[in-house]
């Protein structure tokens, strides 16, 4: 899979100087950085299709950081979130962590802490995207199967022997073998165990 383009870090903080300085630091270690002054500004942009994370100030005018975090979860945008908090926002941060934030940083933030948190968040997003890409690829491969091959696959994956599959579908065992090897080829797999695993991931049942 290609990860050629640098990861994106989205920073939402209503303080222009703070977001620019944090963007400065992240750019110096080769991240792409996008800066926003409010939740609304962030929601207005199309997110690029690369690994990314969101660095979010808890205290924002209008929609608060926590509200934005909740909203993203609700609309199924699974961007890893790092919360930033000022003085007295600790209870809010606990709420944010419970809602799935990767980390929370208390201002003034040490540069290395920010870089570490972003590193963890980006890797999390990469592995999630990697999983997602794998599933998409499997779906595409599965789409190449004929209806008959799909039937054979479901039965084989459920643990039936060729002979049982043949009688289930009222076809010859030789035909089952032919369909089965075609399925394996199209899904690029060599073992029945892996076939069963793919069926599970794609939620295919007999």
């Amino acid at each position: 899979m290609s990860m050629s383009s640098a990861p994106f870090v989205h920073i939402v903080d209503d303080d222009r100087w703070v977001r620019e300085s944090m963007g400065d630091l992240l750019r110096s270690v080769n991240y792409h950085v996008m800066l926003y002054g409010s939740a609304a500004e962030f929601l207005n942009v199309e997110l690029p299709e690369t690994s990314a994370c969101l660095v979010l100030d808890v205290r924002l005018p209008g929609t608060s950081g926590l509200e934005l975090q909740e909203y993203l979860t609700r609309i199924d945008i699974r961007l890893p979130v790092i919360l930033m908090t000022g003085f007295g926002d600790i209870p809010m941060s606990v709420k944010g962590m419970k809602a799935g934030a990767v980390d929370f940083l208390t201002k003034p933030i040490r540069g290395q802490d920010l870089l570490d948190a972003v590193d963890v968040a980006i890797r999390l997003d990469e592995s999630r995207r990697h999983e997602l890409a794998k599933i998409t690829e499997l779906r595409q491969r599965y789409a190449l199967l004929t209806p008959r091959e799909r039937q054979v696959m479901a039965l084989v994956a459920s643990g039936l022997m060729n002979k049982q599959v043949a009688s289930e579908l009222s076809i010859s065992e030789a035909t089952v073998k032919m369909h089965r090897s075609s399925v394996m080829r199209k899904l690029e797999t060599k073992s029945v165990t892996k076939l069963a695993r793919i069926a599970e991931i794609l939620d295919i049942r007999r």
Partner: protein
Amino acid sequence: MEGIITDVTRQKAAEQALTDARGALARASRLASLGELAGSIIHEVNQPLTGIIASGEACLRWLARDPADPGEARNSAARIIEQGRRASSIIAGLRSIARDARLEFADIQINETVEEVLVLSKRELERAGVTPSTAFDVSMPEIMADRVQLQQAVLNLVRNAIDSMAGANGRARILTASSKVADGHASVTIADTGVGIDPAITERMFDPLFTTKDEGLGLGLSICRKIICAHGGRLWLEKNTTHGSAFTFALPLRQRCPSSEIK
């Protein structure tokens, strides 16, 4: 004719008294919001600090690149300077507040001073279902003190007492303000019938930013102690049981060399 002049003089005196009272009240409420202020100061100063740290580290990283990127490093340095300026303008704003915290000593009646705080807190006391009571030493002489600052200290103690009684059910909520003259000192005690103070925290409760309240900033008692100390006095926890606690402060009857500022 004489009657009219007397009336005008009286009226003027009354007006002056009203203006003075308004001024004192304004100062008192400004001090009351000191807690809120501290919270926003911390936030305001943390912002540029966060920026300065991030840009400083960025600057080093731009320079450590191979090849170094002096253009970006220069921008980072400019951001550091700009945010340093911001921080210093916040500090400059604070100086004017600090000037207001100078003590103004005058001969005051301490019983009256404390009683006024109870009058000011009447609504708060009523809302919390607390009955105020007083036991003042009538032989109390006048002392040299800053009336408004002392009232701020008493107000903080009264508010703590009210909060402490919020959790006390099934018994009367009584706040007692008393005074006493002894050993060359005037002492004032604010006692409540609340739930008391966890003995584990009595060591730390005078520390700035130490709080047990969700909404608190942990400045009340530390401000109290600062004010009392600035008067050459002492503030301590007099009594602490699960059925009530009491704070007492003692001020010297004769101010030898009052410090003029709260440090």
